[in-house]
């Protein structure tokens, strides 16, 4: 029973199904939420789901983190470092966009007293 859970196939299956569920939850939030803050939270959930998907599928059972320390002397049997570097970059970019969006929201709130994106209809035909 436990061996079943320790196989790569099972782990990757769990990761794929769960992250896609998480992604769907975020997508649902982006479509349905009206508060700007809630929309930004939904974006972040989507992004987190993608990060977990990418890092998770590059994890194979028995591999170790790509860092050499006292016990290891060569870069062998390690997980792929490039996805980790890419995700690190994307996390920081996500924070930058989130903070910028929030500052837009604060300024808009000060001008109009609302933060509802469905009420933003100043611009139209």
């Amino acid at each position, binding site marked *: 029973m*436990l061996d*079943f*859970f*320790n*196989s790569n196939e*099972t*782990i990757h299956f*769990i*990761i794929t199904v*769960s*992250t896609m*569920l*998480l992604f769907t*939850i*975020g997508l*649902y*939030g982006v479509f349905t*939420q*009206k*508060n*700007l*803050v*809630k929309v*930004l*939270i*939904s974006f*972040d*959930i989507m992004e*987190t789901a993608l*990060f*977990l998907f990418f*890092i*998770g599928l*590059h*994890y194979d*059972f028995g*591999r*170790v*983190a*790509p*860092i050499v320390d006292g016990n290891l002397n060569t870069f062998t049997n*390690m*997980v792929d470092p490039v996805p*980790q570097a890419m*995700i*690190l970059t994307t*996390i*920081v970019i996500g*924070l930058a966009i*989130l*903070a910028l969006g*929030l*500052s837009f*929201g*604060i300024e808009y*709130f*000060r001008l109009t007293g*609302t*933060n*509802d994106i469905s009420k933003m209809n100043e611009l139209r035909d």
Partner: protein
Amino acid sequence: MIGLIILFTFASIIVVALYAVLSQDVTQAVILFMGVGLGSVVLFLIFQAPDVALTEAVIGTGLSTAVFLLGIRHTSIDKEVKS
């Protein structure tokens, strides 16, 4: 064993994320979102990505929650749209 831990962590993340998206209270949603970040930190550690885990811990869980809370506090954005 690791598969089971991954399964349970994912299950809790999904439940928390669902609550965060459906919650009527924005402050509550922000705190629940922090829970999602916390769960993903655990998962990144299991996936042998300590760098990403540390980044997610300080940025996804720490600073972005702080920025969210500061952003919605005094401007009383959270008293706006419910639903």
